[in-house]
């Protein structure tokens, strides 16, 4: 069953067509990847899904509901959460406070609650802390919770971002190049984590990624785009054997093996 259906998605910047009639589905409970050479329109497509760009035309349905013209925060409230290509943490806040931001979309106390601190507000606050600590435990960084985010090494900042994302208990997790800047060990760790997100938390995962090895290892379905349009879709094995994909990555007259790096 499709959790998200993208139909004929098109995104233009002035005269440039970044995404051109892109159509694909994200199945519920799957790990799907969107790949493509540099400048293929991956990030633009991604930003359309999360509401950060406004699609020029086409349709994006999530659980049958259109996400077009929806502000990013509203999309998050629907149960879709994203990470950023170059980690965007709340730098001067603690790890715990960062992860608590994940709970924003699943809690509702406002000014009144904050000023009065009534039982409902206290209960919700305790719940936010519990969920956040669980998320930190899941990523295995609970002992860093009182550290200021900007003082952490890069790899850990990435982990905080993942913890922040899962604290919002999303249905769909969108990862924007999650392996960028990670070393080999950390990438393997990431593969394990992505599987755990799906298997243990039941989160559907969609990622765009440069690292072909990682994508082939973790994704169950891969969508390949070039110049904004889809050129292939299928399992990792099918993609590796697809001549169009090989051409897109390696050029036409190259008879060296598949795109796996």
């Amino acid at each position, binding site marked *: 069953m499709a959790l998200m259906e993208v139909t004929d998605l098109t995104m233009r*910047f002035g005269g440039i067509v970044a995404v051109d009639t892109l159509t694909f589905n994200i199945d519920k409970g799957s790990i799907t990847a969107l790949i493509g050479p540099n400048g293929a329109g991956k*990030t633009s497509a991604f*930003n359309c899904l999360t509401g*950060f*760009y406004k699609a020029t035309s086409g349709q994006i349905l999530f659980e049958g509901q259109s996400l077009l013209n929806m502000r990013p925060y509203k999309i998050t409230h629907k149960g879709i959460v994203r990470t*950023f*290509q170059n980690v965007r943490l709340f730098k001067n806040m603690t790890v715990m406070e960062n992860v608590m931001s994940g709970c924003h979309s699943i809690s509702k106390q406002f000014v009144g609650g904050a000023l009065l601190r009534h039982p409902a507000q206290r209960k919700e606050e305790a719940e936010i802390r519990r969920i956040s600590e669980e998320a930190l435990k899941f990523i295995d960084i609970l002992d860093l919770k009182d550290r200021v985010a900007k003082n952490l090494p890069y790899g850990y900042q990435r982990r905080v971002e993942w913890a922040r994302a899962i604290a919002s208990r999303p249905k769909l997790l969108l990862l*924007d190049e999650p392996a960028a800047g990670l070393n080999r060990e950390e990438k393997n760790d990431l593969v394990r984590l992505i599987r755990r997100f799906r298997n243990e938390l039941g989160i559907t995962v969609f990622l765009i990624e440069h690292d072909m090895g990682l994508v082939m290892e973790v994704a169950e379905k891969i969508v390949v785009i070039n110049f904004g349009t889809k050129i292939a879709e299928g399992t990792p094995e099918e993609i590796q054997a697809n001549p169009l994909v090989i051409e897109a990555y390696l050029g036409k007259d190259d008879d060296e093996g598949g795109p796996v790096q």
Partner: protein
Amino acid sequence: MLSAGEVILQQLMNGLILGSFYALIALGYSMVYGIIKLLNFAHGDIYMTGAFVGFFVFGILAGTVGSSWGGVILAMLAAMCVCGLLGFLIQLLAYRPLFDAPRLSLLITAIGVSLILYNTVMIITNGEYMFFQHSIPAGGLTFGNVTITWVQLVLLAITAVLMLVLSWFIGTTIWGKAMRAISLDKPTCRLMGINVNKIIGLTFFIGSALAAVAGVMSCVYYGSLHYFMGYMMGIKAFTAAVIGGIGSIPGAMLGGLLLGLLEAAGTQALGSSWKDVFAFSLLIIMLIFKPTGLLGKTEIERM
């Protein structure tokens, strides 16, 4: 009594002159904002300082070159040099150390610089009004009961010439191109071998020199000057820059003239006690309906 046509002509002239002042100051705001994204709060006080430098130089020269146009032009050139240098120094000492700091710190520093200039001039002048007495011949072109003075015409001409020169400078010289490039992408400019700090310094020099011209012109036009003349002028010139589209050079010129004309019309319609409210309301309306300004470009955010 003036006829409707004469009132329009008079207010048109008032608006154009006021608009010239706004435009010349707005250029400095817009250039600096374009290049380092700073609301240079001290810019209004540079205009005021320019007026005082011009006033003192004019006073010294009055004995030798006389107190007519010759003296005014020399005073203007002197004020341009002094204020240009002042702007450059302020940038060097106060702003440069903070280019990588949070933007709010830079803004606060600019307020600090503004306080320094303002209070220095206040102490020097004892907080009193100064009177700029020149012997420029009166008279001009007369239309019915309205006279457009030579002073007004010369001031407009100076503004026009400066704007043309600046447009040429920004548009065709290598320094102008570097300025535009820096406002688009500073790190890339560094990689391409542009001396970014030097160009930023140059921007401050030019912007401050233009404000100084406006300062001396307002001395000639209004005949008096005081240490707090820069505050309102500065804010309104910034308003003009925003209306025209901040960061855009033609925008600053257009915005300045437009604000001057609208303010003249507003003053005529509502009375002078409401004229500042009118200008600010215009700013707010502009920001609601077209926040990029008349000639500003919409930028697409990159993630």
